């Protein structure tokens, strides 16, 4: 039996990778992927906890989170498209009209 900590380490590591991805990626698409990664690493943790304690709630939550993540991705992609049409770039650093 793989100990719970192993899953958690993977989950937290993925989460950290996602966080760093958000912080360093300039490409909006990559950024969206990073966010998805963070959400899914949380899912992994949920599943792990759920299994380790032998309660099923966690599985159900993962379903919810998956759909939310999908909805988020859809909204994000739609926005990226609109942005690209208007600004001809998806470099997140270029979007700094609003500042100070």
């Amino acid at each position, binding site marked *: 039996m793989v100990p719970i900590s192993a899953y958690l380490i993977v989950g937290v590591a993925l989460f950290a990778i996602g966080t760093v991805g958000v912080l360093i990626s300039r490409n909006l698409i990559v950024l969206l992927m990073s966010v998805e990664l963070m959400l899914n690493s*949380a899912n992994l943790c949920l599943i792990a906890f759920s299994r380790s304690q032998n309660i099923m*709630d966690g599985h159900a939550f993962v379903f919810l*989170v998956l759909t*939310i993540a999908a909805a988020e991705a859809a909204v994000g992609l739609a926005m990226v498209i609109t942005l690209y049409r*208007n*600004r001809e770039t998806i470099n997140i650093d270029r979007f700094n009209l609003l500042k100070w």
Partner: protein
Amino acid sequence: MIDYTSASIDFALLGPEIALLASAFLILVTGYVKSLGKLSPGVAFVGLVIALVLSLNQWGNQSSGFFGMVTCDDFGSAFKVIFTLIAILTLLMAHRYLSHKSLNRPEFYALLNISTMGMMVMANSTDLVVMFLGLEIMSLPLYVMAGMARRSPESNEAGIKYFVMGAFASAFLLMGIAFVYGASGTTDLRRLVTDYHYIVGNFKLYLYSGVAMILVGFGFKVGAVPFHSWIPDVYEGAPTPVTAFFSVGPKAAGFAVLLRLFVFGFAYIGLLSDVFWVLAALTMTVGNIMALRQNNIKRMLAYSSIAHAGYILIAFAVGGDSAVSAAMFYLVAYALFNTGAFAVLVLLETRTGCKSDFSELSGFSRLHPYLSSVLALFMFALCGFPPTVGFFGKFYLFSAAIQSGFIWLVVIGVMNSFVSVYYYLRVIKVSFFDQPQQTFVPVTYSPAIIVVLLITLAGTLGLGLFPQQLLDISQSAIFAFL
């Protein structure tokens, strides 16, 4: 004795939510059918009014259902009423503005109602996952609403910034919930509270780090420093009625959840008081200082909304019944005068080429003495001057804090509210005292926005003179299932 984890599938508990959702769906289906599209605002309005009536009906009925996932208590009902009122005001002020900017699409009204429904879901549960679900239902429409002006690069940018930061915060929130779940095996706040000592004894690390991340997630929504940086950009870029909605709606929802979680729920964690102390002090100070040098009124009000969130955070540091009721009172008061101020801005921006810069206000009072006086009154309320309700909001908050011995926090709060006078007064100074650079284009009123102005004005002044009623309500509303 109330059955906390009632399994009953009682759809009456979700009445307001269902009403909002149904109206939103109706708009979506009929919105692009010719000749029915014009009805969208009306449909949204009717949905909101039904939701308001149903929420008011729920007041006093404490019950729980759906295996404990939905909880109707007075605390939640009070917030539901607040959300619907805010949404109604937004709807009234938005219609003509959107037509003027050719943004009047049925989706706006559907999104508004769905977002309001999300807030209700948030306020209406003691379950962390349902709260998360509500947060997302609220946020996703908000992202779209912020970027609604598709041709405007500012609006696009506001949308994407809000989205990226919001999704980032959501991820932390979800991770936090996962950790709390891992520590306790449950996501129901009530069971967390019951088993608190056992959980802390065995899984303190998971619990604490989870709680920290949950705080981050909801702190983001209310704009607590350092999770505030999206606020000014998004507020400035979004269409003004949407900004008005942002500045009060999601904020109230965030505070509803935060109050439930941190004042009622995790109150055992002794550390929280200190954390909120620092957060409150930071939030109000940063908000106020940043607001000093702004040239755009929307941006200034954005920072000011951060500062006001800081004042409300004082209640979290203090804790206890009087602080919670003071926070609720403050939220309602803030919703009133802030919406009022935005309503005036909406009126001003419903003229071609206006972006709510300070300089555009010069000559305002010459042409519109009443409207400018109303704006001045809202500014005084934001400053916290008597006899507006803004004064009583601060007064309750600070006196609750003083009574619990948080003298230094109050000193910081009072000092901050004096700093704030400077930039609020600037609005009055420019609109009353400055020589106009160019001729001031007259404002044209619409009946709906006059209703908004009258409601907010009556609330700001009336509750300032007779705050008792609202205070009574806010005191009975702290009955929560925890």
